């Protein structure tokens, strides 16, 4: 029987002990004497969030297919256990073996959102691994970062030995083989990092140096070791069909956020919305073969026993085989008590038809993400959706019996005026009006239009990477403008409005486009008790402001200035295929509110064609 790292007394006095005991269906056990490499894969948030992440499931499966590697999982202990582990000096452990992380060869941390940065430090700290890479010795695991936030790894540079930039399926084998080889030859940690730096896509931050201008902007960024390349090339799987996919993902005992099988139908997006980082990072769009997906659906449902399956991708309506796949899933599984959970689809006759088949119309709602209220603003962000699309889609749905609509918008976009803000409630009102055009005896009571706004955060590698952000007060004022305008609408009783927290937005902005100096503030904030910042009940803006103040960093420098065309960015050393020149062209077009066609309409020469795959070569072979 497996021996647990935590004793009964602890487990019976904390929330949800199942977070820490492992042993779930499809979790992988191996004999530790029989493997060469022990890898701890971490999602730095609570179990229920971390277990819902597809990327980790893919890597867990991929690593464990290797006989010489045992990959285990670790998540952030929740606050109750965090306190006990600190008091009793219990080292953080992996779920499968329950062994301390500090004894592993690797600790891989996926970095999915900026507000988990202090949790990364928590994981290192509880593992009794020095926070700074420079203080680690031969006995410590190699700490690797991966995931979308590593496209600007600089705020975290000091805490990681290396970063893996891009999709995990490509060079991990090389990275692991090099480790084995180095170990066999009696090489040191430093020797290994030098080997790793030569693998495409691997960034070893300690081998690079940054210098700054007097105004604080980056003056230069370059390698200081010969083995380290000037540019780090993002990793990408060209053929997403013939690559590994977890057919038997781990099934948690407790209910997690994503308590279902997930079919990733494609990567990338053809749309080119100018605010969207994923849309640029994961270019070119690559589809997974529909027959393969059908096979995965069978296998995953059989191996997990889940009662629900969902599809995952950006802009799922653009998947060319969507109709075939969705109809197959409905036909094949719905009669067996399996729920088909649809991604948000463009509203048209097909999507309304399948939604009607898989959801209870009275309970479900339609989702539109116009992102901006006015057509001018939507042109600025290159969001193809028009008012006509929204009103006719909503109209069709209302006639089909729906009466709930969710609308998503962003505030604080570049060039936004008060008129653009007021256009948000006006659009919501037009949707409600469209509903009340239906004769009273044919409609289903009142309609409910829920509008949510978040504040726009400029991200690296987007056409808006030069844009300025605003202060906390300004964001609140903008939300108030929208709120007031809602009160002026004819159908205000059918309209609801929620807005996203402004304080978190400000910090996310700093981390997203921060440089190496920002790491100091993160470490400071952590030492002052910041942790689980993504959880609003645990987020302390005041502490963060103090941490910035004490480390002499100015939030305004990172957020409140429009960056110059010539400015060198901390992330410019990463090559995602999409060129800076293209992004700048898109910025200029945005300023003129000019729309750029999507990848299937017309190639705009973003640069990612160099990979020679996906949508870039569609119809060319």
């Amino acid at each position, binding site marked *: *029987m*497996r021996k*647990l790292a935590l*004793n*009964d*007394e602890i*487990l*019976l006095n904390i929330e949800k*002990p*199942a977070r820490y*005991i*492992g*042993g*779930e*269906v499809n979790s992988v056990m191996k004999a530790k004497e029989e493997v060469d490499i022990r890898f701890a894969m971490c999602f730095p948030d609570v179990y229920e969030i971390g277990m819902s992440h597809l990327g980790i499931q893919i890597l867990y499966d991929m690593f464990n297919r290797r006989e010489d590697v045992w990959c285990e999982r670790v998540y952030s202990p929740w606050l109750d256990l965090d306190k006990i582990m600190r008091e009793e000096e219990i080292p953080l452990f992996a779920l499968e073996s329950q062994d301390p992380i500090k004894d592993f060869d690797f600790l891989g941390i996926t970095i999915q959102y900026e507000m988990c940065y202090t949790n990364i430090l928590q994981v290192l700290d509880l593992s009794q691994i020095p926070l700074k890479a420079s203080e680690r010795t031969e006995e410590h695991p190699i700490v690797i970062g991966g995931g979308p936030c590593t496209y600007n790894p600089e705020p975290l540079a000091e805490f990681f030995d290396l970063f893996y930039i891009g999709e995990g399926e490509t060079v991990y084998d090389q990275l692991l083989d090099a480790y084995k080889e180095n170990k066999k030859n009696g090489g040191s940690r430093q020797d290994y990092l030098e080997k790793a730096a030569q693998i495409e896509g691997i960034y070893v931050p300690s081998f690079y140096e940054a210098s700054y201008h007097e105004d604080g902007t980056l003056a230069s960024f370059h390698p200081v070791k010969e083995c380290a390349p000037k540019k780090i090339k993002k990793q990408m799987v060209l053929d997403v069909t013939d690559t590994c996919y977890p057919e038997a993902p781990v*099934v948690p*005992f*407790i*209910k997690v956020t994503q308590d279902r099988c997930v079919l990733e139908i494609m990567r990338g997006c053809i749309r080119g919305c100018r605010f969207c980082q994923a849309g640029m990072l994961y270019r070119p769009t690559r589809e997974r073969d529909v027959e393969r997906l059908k096979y995965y659906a069978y296998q995953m*449902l*059989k*191996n*997990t*026993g*889940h*009662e629900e399956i969902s599809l995952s991708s950006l802009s799922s309506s653009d998947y060319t085989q969507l109709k075939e796949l969705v109809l197959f899933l409905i036909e094949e599984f719905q009669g067996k*008590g399996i*729920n088909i959970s649809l991604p948000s689809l463009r509203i048209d006759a097909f999507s309304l038809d399948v939604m009607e088949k898989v959801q*209870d119309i009275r309970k479900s709602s339609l989702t539109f993400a116009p992102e901006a209220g006015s057509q001018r603003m939507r042109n600025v962000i290159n969001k193809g959706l028009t008012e006509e699309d929204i009103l006719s889609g909503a109209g069709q749905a209302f006639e089909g019996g729906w009466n709930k609509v969710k609308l998503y918008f962003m505030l604080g976009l570049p060039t936004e005026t008060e008129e653009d803000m007021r256009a948000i409630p006006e659009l919501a009102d037009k949707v409600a009006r469209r509903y009340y055009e239906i004769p009273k005896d044919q409609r289903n009571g009142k309609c409910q239009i829920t509008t949510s706004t978040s504040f726009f955060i400029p991200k690296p590698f987007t056409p808006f990477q030069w844009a300025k952000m605003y202060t906390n007060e300004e964001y609140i004022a903008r939300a108030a403008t929208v709120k007031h305008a809602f009160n002026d609408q004819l159908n205000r009783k059918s309209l609801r409005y929620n807005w996203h927290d402004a304080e978190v937005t400000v910090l996310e902005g700093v981390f997203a486009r921060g440089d190496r100096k920002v790491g100091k503030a993160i470490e400071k904030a952590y030492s002052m008790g910041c942790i689980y910042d993504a959880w609003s009940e645990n987020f302390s803006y005041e502490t963060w402001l103090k941490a910035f103040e004490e480390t002499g960093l100015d939030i305004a420098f990172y957020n409140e200035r429009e960056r110059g065309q010539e400015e060198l960015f901390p992330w410019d050393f990463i090559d995602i295929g999409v060129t800076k020149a293209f992004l700048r062209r898109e910025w200029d077009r945005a300023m003129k509110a000019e729309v750029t066609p999507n990848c299937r309409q017309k190639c705009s020469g973003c640069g990612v064609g160099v990979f020679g795959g996906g949508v870039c070569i569609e119809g060319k072979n």
Partner: protein
Amino acid sequence: MKARIKFRKYGVMRFIGHLDVMRYFQKAMRRADIPIAFTSGYSPHMIMSFAQPLGVGVTSDGEYLDIELKESISSEKAVKQLNAVMVEGIDIVSFVQIPEDKKASGMTIVAAAEYKVSFLKSAKSAYETISVRDALSEKGDAERLVHNFLKLDQIMVLKKSKKQEREIDIKPLIYRMEVEGEQLHLFLAAGSEENLKPDLVMEAFFKFLGTTKEETPVHYHRLEVYAKNPNDGKDTDMTQFVSLESLGNLIPEFN
């Protein structure tokens, strides 16, 4: 047709609560290809009910769930298929057919449950036990102490429910309490009408002895869940209670 599944819960699975065990079995039914029936309607769910929830931390040799089958499956095959998809800490013991009658379902017929109480060196581990005699030696002879406890006219305890707290006399609900080997055995009323959890008995016992559960850590293990014997009174050889399992019949393989 209806079937009753008996299973054991042990090891790390003792940390999985009742609701999660239900979820676990729903998924296990699919993995094991058990021909379970669903309710009709917009969101069909499996027809499945558990006899008696088990508290977190408690292990058991006698847990039950009843399910509705849409077609027959032999007991042997069902047990084999289910065990092939279990995790460490849950074993399927048996799979038997039970009468169609609604009044025969597990939840309604539960009348008693039997527990083994082990005394622990510390609350840190349920595996390091000491004998009940040693654990209570400071207070006196274990058998004597139990005897005296049961001689009380009333055993009043504070019973907490979600809505209220009230004092009740649990003595009539303790059917049997005795030292057996190294442990203490409890045979208690259970079910929807009068339910007595073992920790409530032990709390009262410790109070009687002038000690606490913190000072005297114990581990609970459920041995069996019982129904009233349907033949009780008609046949003098029969005992008052029978296990839920014994009310079903093995399903043979047809073909």
